[in-house]
């Protein structure tokens, strides 16, 4: 079989079979204008909004039934027992579970670090989100106009996020003791075609961020009340920050479903993998607890580009050219 020709044929076949929904022109214009309004802190000329509303009135009917293009779920929702008690999660149907109890509304995702969870209700805004902040499953705050984040500090004392915009905006640090804003910093958020900013925040409120993925030209640290300072090292090799408790790890850290462990792939000596190198060891550690770190030899050759994926709170599969199953309880990997 000619794999490359088959690939071309199948991609074209799949693409031709995909039924695209109607173009949501009015929604796109509104979202973009909203972001621009927030960015520039100016009042948008009413004529633009009126024009957008007129366009919206014309095309809104075309969006009815848009959901019908989405196929039904193809696999069952994760079992509630999959998650540790107290870790909120969102299933594939968009239901938020807290202590395994379904909550009202439709949700897109929930991200938990320690006691805190950012849960995101579904909305029609393609640019920004609203994040409901939970502490141990109880709602304590709401953050709107979130362009990226919020991220929580390892000790659960601060959170930080970027407000809505594309190229300029604000970086906000909020104290989780009184939910007051510690400080705000105007920031440039990237160039056209550029991408999401990255972000991490420490317990003293110091923020590290990078807004020009994947280059390392603009990495900054900023402590509220002070000026931003350039830093040489990006949060991680590819610019994406690792979860709280794994700062300094240059490989991609994967959190277990209950967020009790993080795992990453290394070479034989525990170091960074070369681009053409397959993993030799799986390193596992609890967030913020380097003393808990241990490594497991990876039996089998999964090859370059392998990723570690948690299948349960204690088991992972390393997926590459082949698959290797690892158990952090028995500390063994088998192909």
């Amino acid at each position: 079989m000619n794999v490359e020709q088959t690939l071309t044929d199948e991609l074209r076949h799949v693409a031709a079979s995909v039924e695209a929904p109607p173009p949501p022109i009015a929604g796109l214009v509104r979202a973009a204008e909203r972001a621009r309004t927030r960015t520039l802190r100016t009042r948008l000329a009413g004529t633009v909004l009126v024009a957008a509303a007129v366009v919206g009135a014309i095309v809104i009917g075309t969006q009815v039934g848009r959901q019908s293009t989405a196929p039904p779920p193809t696999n069952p929702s994760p079992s509630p027992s999959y998650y540790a008690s107290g870790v909120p999660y969102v299933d594939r149907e968009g239901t938020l579970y807290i202590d395994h109890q379904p909550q009202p509304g439709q949700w897109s995702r929930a991200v938990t670090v320690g006691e805190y969870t950012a849960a995101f209700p579904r909305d029609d805004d393609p640019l920004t989100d609203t994040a409901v902040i939970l502490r141990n499953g109880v709602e304590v705050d709401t953050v709107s106009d979130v362009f990226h984040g919020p991220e929580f500090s390892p000790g659960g004392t601060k959170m930080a996020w970027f407000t809505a915009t594309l190229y300029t905006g604000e970086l906000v640090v909020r104290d989780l003791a009184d939910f007051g804003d510690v400080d705000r910093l105007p920031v440039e958020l990237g160039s056209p075609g550029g991408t999401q900013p990255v972000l991490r925040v420490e317990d003293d409120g110091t923020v590290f961020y990078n807004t020009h993925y994947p280059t390392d030209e603009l990495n900054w640290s900023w402590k509220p009340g002070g000026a931003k300072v350039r830093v040489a090292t990006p949060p991680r090799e590819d610019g994406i920050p690792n979860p709280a408790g794994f700062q300094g790890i240059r490989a991609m850290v994967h959190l277990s479903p209950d967020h009790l462990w993080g795992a990453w792939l290394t070479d034989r000596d525990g170091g960074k993998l070369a681009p053409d190198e397959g993993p030799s060891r799986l390193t596992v550690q609890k967030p913020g607890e380097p003393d808990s770190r241990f490594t497991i030899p990876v039996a089998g050759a999964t090859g370059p580009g392998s990723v570690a994926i948690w299948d349960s709170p204690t088991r992972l599969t390393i997926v590459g050219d082949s698959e290797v199953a690892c158990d952090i309880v028995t500390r063994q990997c088998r192909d």
Partner: protein
Amino acid sequence: MALGSSLPLSATPTYEEYVGARWAALYRTAYLLTGNHADAEDLAQTTMVKAYQSWSKVVGAESPDAYVRRILTNAFLSSRRPLRISRERLVDEAPDTPVAASHDHDRLVLWPHISSLSPRQRAVVVLRYYEDLSEQQIADVLGCSTGTVKSTASDAVRALRSRLTATEGDRS
């Protein structure tokens, strides 16, 4: 129909004209990248919002399609990558494409395995084998060298071939 070969446009299209002419093609490319409708819609919308924000640059570019394609690809590579990988893993086999479910499933021997590729590999595969871009064009989109494009494409094809061989072994 890939983005670069879709409906003709005037020399300086308005945003609305561009979206109207290119939306379906953009959506299909987004679908190939993400493997499901929900993420494809998010990705296509995010791309076009970003395009609106810099519309004068888009429409003034030598190739507006190339500009938008770059926005699309970078948005895909940077957004929620770990979540996307884990979600795909939960799916276990093929992405939730209606194609595999409603058409001749046996013909699609590689598509079910594309979700196992890394996002960067998948982007290179889609740009090269669907969008029919040259290595230099892909390098421009991704902001990397042609050597990186070659090695990424080679790794992706090798991985797909390996998975295909494994699958055929299981069937026999």
